[in-house]
């Protein structure tokens, strides 16, 4: 029970710290403006108004969520080590596992809360423009959240052993390669020997983020079989769990000089 309370306490503190950061507000306002600007795109489009609205809105939420994950996530542990604020926390009866999990939960919570606000804004705009709100748009939003959950865990893992700059670089690389992994595998399978072995290893190591891409379903209101959806959710949870486990293993061994 104490362990859970500690995780929630650390998550709440991470949430509050991020919420009060000025950079966070700038990012949020910028994204909100982009969501609302979908109205402009809608006004200048004659036939596919509803599609443009959903496309632009979800893309803005996705960019914002990604930017916030990288901005807040890549330094979430190492910044505290550099500033030495971690000393006070880890000297308390807090396990390192609880600390990592609390930090990740706090990060995901702030992104979830702000993305949900933006998503609600998008739904209001859709309502104003009398666009049908169907299951697809929720599916698109769920995909974004799953992607953030996975990338957040990768960011936490990186920040346990390297600098913010390198963490940001790794996260960006994971993001782009994660979206291109199917094409990457196709290329790799044309090669042979060690190159193929290494290529395949990288493919299985990097999360296939295209699995979370439901924007097509959102735009054209295409449903997904519940089995497929469950598999995608489980994949996201398992990958995030594995990344967090790796983060805990690295963090357990760390000395704080």
């Amino acid at each position, binding site marked *: 029970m104490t362990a859970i*309370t500690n995780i929630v306490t*650390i998550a709440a503190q991470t949430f509050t710290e991020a919420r*009060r*950061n000025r950079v966070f507000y700038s990012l949020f306002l910028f994204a909100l403006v982009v969501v609302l600007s979908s109205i402009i795109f809608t006004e200048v489009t004659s036939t596919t108004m509803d599609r443009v609205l959903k496309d632009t809105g979800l893309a803005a939420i996705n960019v914002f969520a990604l930017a916030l994950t990288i901005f807040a996530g890549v330094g979430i542990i190492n910044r505290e080590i550099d500033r030495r604020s971690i*000393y006070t926390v880890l*000297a308390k*009866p807090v396990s390192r596992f609880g600390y990592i999990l609390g930090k990740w939960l706090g990060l995901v919570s702030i992104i979830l809360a702000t993305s949900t606000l933006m998503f609600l804004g998008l739904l209001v705009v859709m309502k104003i423009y009398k666009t049908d709100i169907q299951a697809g748009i929720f599916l698109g939003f769920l995909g974004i959240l799953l992607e953030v959950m996975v990338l957040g865990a990768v960011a936490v893992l990186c920040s346990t052993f390297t600098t913010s700059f390198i963490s940001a670089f790794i996260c960006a690389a994971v993001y782009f390669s994660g979206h291109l992994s199917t094409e990457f595998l196709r290329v790799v399978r044309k090669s042979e020997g060690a190159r193929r072995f290494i290529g395949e290893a990288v493919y299985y190591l990097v999360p296939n983020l295209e699995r979370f891409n439901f924007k097509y379903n959102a735009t054209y209101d295409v449903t997904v079989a519940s089995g497929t959806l469950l598999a995608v959710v489980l994949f996201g949870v398992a990958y995030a769990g594995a990344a967090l486990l790796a983060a805990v293993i690295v963090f357990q061994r760390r000395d*704080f*000089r």
Partner: protein
Amino acid sequence: MNAIELRELNKSFRLDLKVGRRQALNSLSLTVQPGEIYGFLGPNGAGKTTSIKILVSLLRADSGTATIFGLDPARNETRKRIGYLPESPVFYDQLTGREFLRFCGKLCGMRGPDLETRSTRLLEEVGLGHAGDLQIRRYSKGMNQRVGIAQALLHDPELVILDEPMSGLDPIGRAEVRDLILGLKKRGKTVFFSTHIIPDVEMICDRIGLINRGRMVSEGSVSELLDTREARPIEVLVENVTGAIDGALASEVSTIGAQTLYLVNSDEALHRFVAAVLERRGRLVSVTPRREGLENLVVRLLEQDRVAA
């Protein structure tokens, strides 16, 4: 059972390929009794902070053992019994002082009105009653230090470990912290603190440990250390001495008229010096053991340690 026990503690850090590893702690042993105020002294880089970090489980020793009340510091049950103030602390600057204390209290298992009452009382005690609702980023260095002390005492721990608690405080603040430490002792708490400010140690510590290059140089109560033979040079005032006295026996301090003041470093040297004075038909006016200040003692012990190395 000892409040703190370090036994044969070793710790080294890898610096870079050229320099290799640096030995931060070298078979360091010490014990702190419950209810004691223990001052941990040493120059920069002596290993004070490294020892403290091992005690609060931020570092792992290469070899040797560290226990708190006989328990492993890595266990959460042990850390519940410790309050810790890091050196030059930095806290979550977007939180207010009160929010930060609330956060720390919750991590120590405190809840509800008890936590609120205790936070308010401690903010008052450390002189931050007026600034509890101000964000920590607006705090001065001294205020930061004070909120750090408050979080260390919040859960009423049995052992308080303070790494340079006086740093960043003005003389009034230092006096307040001294009173706070003495107040903890009165309530039966154990206080272990490192500092560079020797007069503070002299005033409040039951025992001190002086370390250098990761080794214990000297340990004991302030009076024990000051009363050791080596620590007591002897002032000898003589008059009408004809001829010079061997400089190896005593050093001449000053001469007024026929009287000369000498400083002799040991009892053995004193015997030979007195014999030399009498041989030269001189008269012994006074022999006074000089009580060395702790500051001088520390400097001298560190110098001896440096020469021995």
